[in-house]
C-alpha cells in the first residue's frame, strides 16, 4: 500500500486551511476598506496594500500543497510509501493550522490598521508594520512544513 492518499490529504489540508484563514482575513479587511473607500476613494492604493496583507497565508499553504504534489508522485517524483504519505500529511498540518489561525488574527489586525490609516494616512506605515508582526507565525509554520516536505523523499520510512 502506498501513501498517495495521505500525501493528497496533506496537500488539500495545507492549501484549504491556510486559504480559509486568508480568505476570512482578506474578506474582513476588504469590508472595512470598502467602508473607507466609500468616503474617500483616493485611498485605494493604501487600502489595497492593507487588505492584501492577510493574503499571504493562503499563498504559503498553496506552495506547500504544490510541493507535496511535485514531490509526492502526482506532478512528478516517485510514488510515496505509506510512511512518506503520513509524513507529508504531518508536514501539511503546520502551515494548515498555523496559516489558518494567523490568517484570522492578521485579518483582525488589518481591520484595525485600516481604521487607523483612514483617520490619518500618515499612520499608514505604522499600521502596515504592525499588521506584518502577525505574519511571522505563519512564516515559521511555513518553514517547518517546507523543510519537512523537501526532506520526505529521502526518508526511508
Amino acid at each position: 500500500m502506498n501513501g498517495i492518499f495521505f500525501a493528497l490529504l496533506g496537500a488539500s489540508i495545507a492549501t484549504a486551511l491556510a486559504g480559509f484563514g486568508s480568505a476570512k482575513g482578506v474578506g474582513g479587511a476588504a469590508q472595512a476598506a470598502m467602508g473607507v473607500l466609500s468616503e474617500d476613494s483616493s485611498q485605494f492604493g493604501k487600502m489595497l496594500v492593507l487588505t492584501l496583507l492577510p493574503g499571504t497565508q493562503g499563498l504559503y499553504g498553496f506552495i506547500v500543497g504544490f510541493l507535496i504534489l511535485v514531490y509526492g508522485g502526482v506532478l512528478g517524483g516517485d510514488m510515496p510509501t505509506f510512511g512518506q504519505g503520513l509524513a507529508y500529511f504531518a508536514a501539511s498540518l503546520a502551515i494548515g493550522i498555523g496559516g489558518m489561525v494567523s490568517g484570522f488574527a492578521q485579518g483582525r489586525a488589518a481591520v484595525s490598521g485600516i481604521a487607523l490609516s483612514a483617520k490619518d494616512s500618515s499612520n499608514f506605515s505604522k499600521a502596515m508594520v504592525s499588521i506584518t508582526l502577525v505574519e511571522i507565525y505563519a512564516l515559521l509554520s511555513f518553514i517547518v512544513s517546507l523543510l519537512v516536505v523537501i526532506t520526505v523523499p529521502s526518508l526511508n520510512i
Partner: protein
Amino acid sequence: MKSVQIIALRQDRKRLLEHLQDSGLIQIKKTEKCKKGFNKIDMTSQEQVFERNVTLSEQALKILDRLSPEKKSMLSSFCGRREIDPDEIGVIASNAGEVINICNRICELNKICADNAAEQIRIRTSLTQLEPWRSLDIPLNCHDTKTTAVIIGSIQKEYDEISFAQTLAEYSPELEFEFEIQYSSNGLTCLVIFVPFAQKELAENALRDMGFAKPMNPGNLTPLKETERLNLKSRQLIDKTEEAHQEILSYADKRNEIRDTQDYFRIRADKYNVISGLEHSKNVFVITGYVPEEDCTKLEQLCTRVAACCIEFSDADESDAPVKLKNNRFTRPAQGIVSMYSAPSHDDIDPTPLLAFFFYFFFGMMFSDAGYGLLMVIVIGIVLKIFKPDEKMYNNLKLFQYCGVSTFFWGLIFGSIFGDAPAVLYNFFTGSKITMAQMLPWPTLDPQKDALMLMIVSIAFGLVHILVGMGCKFYICWKHKDYAAALFDTGLWMLMLIGFAVLAAGMATTQTVMLIGAGIAIACAIGLILTQGRNKKGFGKIVGGAASLYDITGYISDLLSYSRLLALGLTTGVMAQVFNMLATMFGTSWIGFIFLIIVFLIGHAINIGLNALGSYVHTMRLQYVEMFGKFYEGGGNEFKPFSLNSKYIKIQEEKSK
C-alpha cells in the same frame, strides 16, 4: 542647519517673499510673541478669501470631472506637475477673476441641476397622488354651493357603490347623501360626496369615523388639467437641467485654467499665511527661520539681489531645529522610507545610507527573479523618461528601480528568470528534459533544493543587519560620551552574538572554532551579569545583570525573523513555476500556443503584483522592527521649506533664480 534672520523694508515684502517661495530655501518660523515696537499684521481675511477660491475651484473641477470625465491613461498618475514660465504666473493672475467667475457659474449651475432633480421627485409624487382622480371633472378643492356641500377625499379601504352607501348609512342614519366613486382598487377608495349644506358637519363626523381623509394638497385645477400642468413643468425642468448641463460642459475646456488658478490661489494663501506670522514695524519686517548650511550663500545672494535687506546667520539651537536629510543619488530614494517611520532627531544619525543598502539587498533577495528585476528596471526607466514625475514620485520609482537591479542579480544567483521559464519553454518546444541548473552556465542556488542552506544564509544576513544596527547604537553612545552604555549595553551583546555565530560555524567545521565561540559567548555573558545592574543598588546589581541575559530571546526572535528572506524568495520562485507549468499544459498545438501566451502573461502579472507587495512590506518591516529597533529614536522635525506647495504647476527652475 543654520538659524537665519532677514530684516527688510516693507515695500519689498511682496517681491522678497515671492522669491523665497519660488526658491524653497528657507523654513520660516512663526513668531508667537512680538518684540517691542513690532506687531503682527492680520491677514486672515485675505487668506480666507484665497482658500475659499481654492475650495470653489476644487468643487468646480469635481463637477466637471463628474459630467465630462477626462480621458486618463493608467500611468498618468506618475505624471509630474506642469512646468510653466515664471512670466506665465502673471497671466494666470490677471485671468484669475474671470476663472473664479466661471467656477462660481459652474457651482451655481450644478445647484440648479440638483434643485431640479429634487423638484422632479416632488412632481412625480404629486402625479401619483393625482392618478386615482383622473376622471374627476371638478377641481379637488371644489367649493360648496349655497345648498350643497361637496366633500372630496379617500378612504383606505375598498368599497363599491352598495357597500359604501350601507356603511355610511350605518354610521349616520339620518344623513342624506349622494356620492360618486372615482376610483376603487388596491385597498383605496376615492370618492366625491354631496350632502345638504345643513348636514355638512354631521357628514364630516361620520366620514371621519370611517377613516375618510381629504387630499393632501388640492389644486384649483381639475385633476386632468393639473396632471397636464405638472407634466409640462417636469418637461421644462428636464430641458432646463439639460441646458445647465450643456453650459457646464461648455466650460470643460477651461479645466486647465481652473487648475492653474487654483494653484495660484493656493500659493497666495500660503504666502499670506506666512505674512501673518511675521513681525512688522512701521517700515521694516523680520523673517526668522532655518536654512540648511549649504544653502546659506545662495539665500544671501538671492535676498540681496531682490531687496534691500540685512541678513544674519547664526547657529541653530539643535533640539528645535528641523532636520534635512542629505543623501546622494544612490541613497536618496530610501529617504521616503525613513520619513515614513519618523525623521531623525538631533541625537540620531541619518540612517538612510544603511537603510538604502539593506533595503535594495533584502528586497532583491525576496523578489529574486532576474526576469522581474529586468522588467522593473526597464519599465520604470521608460516611465521616468516619458512622464517626468515630481520629486516624491521620482524617488519612489527610483527606489523600485534600484530594487529591480538587486532583484535581477539575486534572480541570477537563484537561477530564476520568470521562474523556470527558459527551461520550461525549451522543453515545451523540443520535448527534452532540461532543468534551469543545467541550462545556466553559472552555479546556482536552488531555494527549493537547498532550503536549509538558504535559511542559514538568510539568518547570517540577518545577523549582519542586526550587528550593523547595534554598531550604530554603539557609535551614537560613543559620540555622546556615554562609554559605559556603548561598551557594556551594546558592545558586549555584539560580541556575544558574534560568539554564537562562531559557535554555530564551529559546529559545522572543527571543535576548536566551536570552543572559541563558546568561550566568547560565556565571557560576554559573565560581562553582562557584572555590568547590566550597574545603575541599581545592592542585591539588585546581580539580579539586574542576570535578568538582562533574558534579552537573548529577543535577539533570537529577531534573527529568526530573517527566515522570511527564504520564505518570500521561495514563494516568488514556486508561484512562477506553477504558472509556467499551467501555461504549457495545453500541448504544442496552436490553441495550446495561445493559451501559453495568455496564461504566461496573466500568471506572471499576478505573481509580480503579489510578491512585489510582499517583498516591499516585509523588507520595510525588517528595517523598522529589527534594525531601527536597535538604535533609531526618530521624532525629529523634518525640514519643510516655504515653497510652492502646488498641485498642478511648478515654475521652471533655471528661470526662477
